[in-house]
């Protein structure tokens, strides 16, 4: 670990299993912690904004982060359904971290994915979205090189000025397993946060997600004959080209690959 002087804070939330709806460690947040531990080892600080339940079974979600080898989680106490952005921003303004790691979006609530952007705006930091890896941090020039995850498994290399906020994509390395012992031994360091109520969202109605209707293929034919033809015509497939012979085949495949820009 060469980045000992670096101050890295990872923000964690309580996730929710998509099927059972049980609280769990959020997948992207766990990847963010994995990335942070690889970067600075034991110097990684972890912050959670929310209430800590007295019930042990409710603590398991947060404790599973501790089970990844963290000594403690800083807990900004705030009532449920209040705005976490302002509380966290107020806290982080005093801490002045070099790197803040978050998930792309939360697994419950509005899950708009706005938190890192709002923090970046309020703290005046750079913001990189959906990173897969931090390649290097240059503390002298105050710059870092990160890999951003793109669709189709592609990666983009970005240089970003320190300090910055990064949201960690599912493409990042898998998080380590959570061990039971460390999870029991880990501590919560409670700090009292200011409460900012979120008036707007309390007026919204939420319901379980309905399956979205499949888009219908609308036929806009003007005459009955055209509509009949569209309804009865067989899907025109099998326009494929059949090639015989080794030389011709290889050439035809190469032409297709060139046309698609793959070779």
């Amino acid at each position: 670990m060469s980045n000992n002087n670096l101050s890295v804070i990872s923000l964690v939330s309580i996730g929710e299993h998509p099927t059972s709806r049980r609280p769990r460690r959020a997948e992207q947040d766990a990847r963010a912690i994995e990335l942070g531990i690889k970067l600075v080892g034991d110097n990684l600080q972890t912050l959670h904004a929310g209430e800590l339940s007295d019930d042990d079974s409710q603590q398991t979600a947060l404790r599973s982060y501790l089970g990844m080898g963290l000594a403690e989680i800083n807990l900004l106490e705030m009532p449920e359904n209040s705005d976490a952005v302002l509380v966290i921003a107020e806290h982080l303004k005093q801490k002045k971290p070099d790197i803040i790691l978050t998930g792309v979006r939360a697994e419950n609530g509005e899950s708009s994915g706005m938190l890192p952007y709002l923090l970046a705006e309020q703290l005046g930091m750079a913001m990189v979205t959906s990173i897969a890896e931090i390649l290097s941090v240059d503390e002298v020039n105050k710059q870092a090189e990160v890999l951003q995850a793109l669709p189709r498994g592609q990666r983009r290399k970005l240089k970003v000025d320190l300090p910055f906020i990064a949201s960690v994509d599912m493409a990042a390395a898998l998080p380590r397993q959570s061990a039971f012992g460390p999870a029991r031994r880990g501590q919560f360091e409670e700090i009292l946060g200011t409460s900012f109520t979120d008036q707007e969202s309390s007026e919204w109605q939420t319901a379980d997600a309905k399956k979205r209707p499949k888009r219908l293929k609308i036929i806009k034919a003007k005459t009955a004959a055209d509509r009949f033809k569209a309804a009865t015509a067989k899907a025109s497939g099998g326009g494929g080209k059949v090639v015989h012979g080794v030389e011709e085949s290889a050439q035809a495949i190469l032409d297709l690959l060139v046309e698609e820009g793959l070779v």
Partner: protein
Amino acid sequence: MSELFRRDPRAQWIARNRLHPMHQALVIGPVFGPSGLLRKNLHIIGFIGPNGLKRIDRSGASNDSEQGSRRSATASEVILPLHQVVEPAFYIVVVLDLVSGRLNGHDKDTLGLAQQLANRNNGGGAVVAIAFGELKDDSLNKAGVDRLIHINDEQYAHYNPEQRCNDLQGIIGELEPQHILLPDSINGGGDLGRRLAAALQQRPACGVWKLNDDTVICRGSAGKRDITRPLSKLLLVMEECSEPISETRHENILMSQASSPLANGKLFDQGNISVDPNAIPLAEAGFILSGGNGINDWEQFHHTASVLGATEGASRVAVDDGNMPRERQVGATGTWVTAQVYIAVGISGAIQHMQGIGQCDKVVAINTDEGCDMVKRADISAIGDSTEILARLVELVEQRKQAKQTNNEGDDK
């Protein structure tokens, strides 16, 4: 319009009157003689064959004999009605993703929703599309773009969300749009929209998938809940949130706008890096070389994949025989793939496998059996021994690479 069959009474009268000077040219359909017998004019039916002799095709297979009977519907391009907004009462801004310079389905759906917003409550609004970088698509007028702001510069070829966000702030300050719409996509729209929301201090509605009067329905809790909330100024919309525009043409008038100066950018694009194709998850790989029971030489298969730069896949038989690992299996029981090009070597195409490749764009089959299902599905089918064809393909690709290299070296000198 032009497809409608219209009567021409004068032409019909001439066709009835055998003494009219234009009668010969206009005779349509059967002609009955004075005795009531059907008369055929042999001079106007038939065609001249290749040897210069007249041929009359009585089987009905050729179109020539039907020439006079009825005017066939001509397949001319339908001109859609033009939707004009002369003096816009308000603006709706749409920022397009434009993956490789073209509109995709998500962009078109976003424009469709924007038109819905511009035309509700007696309408009068104009949809302003904002395009950054290269724009190859010329069908913007058919997708519902009333006004276009195109900002193109060398820097927009790269990833520069800070610059784009800064430009958008300027445009929004000028136009004061009623709503701003962006596709909530991983192709840049989601990122740019959230940056803009933070900069404008507007709370966006993310994952919008339906518009009901003055409320929108959004997907929350990472897809588990539906949130119904009032319509907000900034909307990040999902795919299929609205029908794309298909029945009107739009003006697509270019509004000039220069890129704004940005003093302190903190992000610098270093370009895409080359990725090991086998490290890409099979489900999102763009180019897959898949092997099945018909492969004898697996060493050669792996070599071909590495030369082509393709991700390796396999059919179930190849996996069961231990030639490929289980996570490489394509099909209903394995991975459903979405590749742009899928090459199936020695795979006959079991129905489970065909389901798995349903989303693929171009399929190439290399097989010895011309009658197999994979050949029916494929865009190009190469019939022959897969070992020989792959060997020749590798040779051709390597030749091409070498030729490119020497060309580049020549350019450098």
